[in-house]
């Protein structure tokens, strides 16, 4: 069961919980499982079928621009944090490469 | 940069002739101020007169009575690299070797620094302290002016239309006198002075009293300032700490500084006292040494 570190601003959705143990083999499934426990969670992290551009997700400490179909190991830790491109434009995702669908 | 004509007269007469042709003229010696001002549109002209090919303006020599005559277009590096100047006028060398980096000093001139008439001009306080006089020429002849009267306001000098600054004349410094020039800049090089001070004093034969003094400050008023009150606080007094402190305080009180990106008025007034005091100590040391 992967562990989700609940970002401070989303804890009110989860009754104040700081971590969640949820089911899921991919990032999308994990976020949906978290949403089931904390209504509105998925919407706050995902937009247009991808992680919001101002956010980044870290799986086992590796922060990247993961697609929602990124596999997540059973004992993985998932954290949600501000994107650190710095300078705004540099973590710029050209349109064609934006993944389709959740 | 707007277009202009370039003229390099070989004689003063030729220069005066071009000056009188009704076109807006910019004088070019070292060019380290004027070229940048033209490029940034802070000045514009129809013709540029390059003065560096007129022998009188490039000459550097001591006259028989010990007066140093410096052609207005002589590069600063020529001045401070001259061993005789360094021996007789270390205060002048202080100033000449501080203006801009080495690249600037190989081109920039005393004439250019004075004509640019920046309130912070690094050559001004030293020349005022040394009681320098300026020789100004035109097709009608020449006139002389004490250097402190050459500055009318920020960027404004006393040249009339058709006139050229020809020479800076520095009288011999009597035995027992010493001069020193210091400036404060945030970095150790390349900055415009936040405050600068030039002083010269002459000690009595027995070094017990100060017989003559001139104190000048810069960057703390619309023009570089000769401060008579500071000199009065020195003349006739024993060259001790209290005397120098009183003179430095007098210099600070004469300052009318402004606040801008380079410094605040309060900071400049404070620095005027500090830099004048340090320059006085430097001058005192030189005066006692060459007694």
């Amino acid at each position, binding site marked *: 069961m992967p562990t989700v570190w609940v970002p401070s601003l989303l804890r009110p959705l989860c009754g104040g919980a700081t971590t969640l143990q949820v089911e899921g083999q991919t990032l999308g499934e994990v976020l949906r499982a978290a949403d089931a426990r904390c209504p509105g969670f998925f919407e706050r992290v995902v937009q247009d079928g991808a992680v919001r551009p101002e956010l980044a997700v870290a799986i086992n400490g590796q922060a990247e621009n993961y697609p929602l179909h990124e596999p997540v190991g059973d004992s993985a830790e998932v954290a949600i944090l501000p994107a650190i491109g710095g300078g705004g434009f540099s973590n710029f995702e050209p349109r064609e490469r934006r993944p389709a669908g959740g | 940069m707007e*277009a202009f004509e370039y003229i390099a007269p070989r004689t003063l007469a030729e220069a005066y002739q071009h000056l009188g042709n009704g076109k807006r003229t910019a004088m070019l010696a070292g*060019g380290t101020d004027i070229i940048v001002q033209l490029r940034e549109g802070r000045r514009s002209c129809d013709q540029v007169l390059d003065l560096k090919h007129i022998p009188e303006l490039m000459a550097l020599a001591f006259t028989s009575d010990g007066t140093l005559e410096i052609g207005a277009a002589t590069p600063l*590096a020529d001045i401070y690299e001259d061993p005789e100047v360094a021996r007789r006028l270390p205060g002048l060398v202080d100033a000449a070797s501080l203006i801009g980096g080495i690249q600037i000093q190989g081109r920039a001139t005393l004439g250019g620094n004075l004509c640019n008439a920046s309130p912070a001009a690094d050559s001004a306080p030293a020349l005022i302290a040394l009681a320098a006089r300026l020789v100004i020429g035109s097709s009608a002849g020449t006139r002389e002016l004490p250097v402190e009267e050459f500055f009318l306001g920020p960027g404004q000098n006393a040249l009339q239309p058709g006139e050229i600054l020809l020479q800076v004349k520095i009288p011999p410094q009597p035995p027992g006198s010493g001069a020193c020039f210091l400036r404060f800049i945030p970095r150790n*090089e390349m900055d415009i002075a936040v405050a600068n001070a030039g002083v010269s004093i002459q000690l009595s034969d027995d070094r017990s009293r100060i017989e003559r003094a001139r104190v000048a400050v810069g960057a703390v008023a619309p023009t570089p300032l000769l401060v008579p009150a500071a000199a009065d606080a020195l003349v006739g007094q024993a060259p001790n700490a209290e005397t120098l402190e009183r003179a430095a305080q007098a210099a600070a009180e004469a300052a009318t500084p402004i606040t801008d990106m380079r410094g605040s008025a309060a900071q400049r007034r404070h620095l005027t006292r500090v830099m004048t005091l340090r320059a006085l100590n430097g001058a005192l040391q030189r005066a006692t040494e060459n007694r």
Partner: protein
Amino acid sequence: MPRTQVQTRLNGADIDFLCEPRQSLLEVLRDELGLTGTKEGCNNGNCGACTVIMNGRIANACCVLAVEAEGAEVTTIEGVARGDQLHPLQQTFLEEAALQCGICTPGFILAAKALLDKEPNPDEHRIRYWLAGNLCRCTGYDKIVKAVQKASAEMQEAKV
């Protein structure tokens, strides 16, 4: 705007070029003569990236009108090495990692060359004072000063 013909001695060769009076020596070196080794960093005399040697003295080429080069002797970075034989300073700058991006390096090498030609054994303060008109943002100056010191030592040994 009519152009003026200028004759000058550039890197040991007599050449002439046409230019407008408003063109700086930096602009002509780069855009007319194709000598792009002299770099523009600020175009107002504050960074030293356009340092050249003119009549034996270093100068910022951006603060010299090209027409002022008439009859002058000018050396740019392209004239420092002798064919493929690097000047000792060029060699020590490489050996001591005295450059990172390299845009300021031509200016530093000409400034340091003029210093060592004039004063064979300058101390660290003298080197730092002489090079204060050349800005570098990558190195923090440490390795540049050491490269100049090393070249100074090697050049003195070579003379002995």
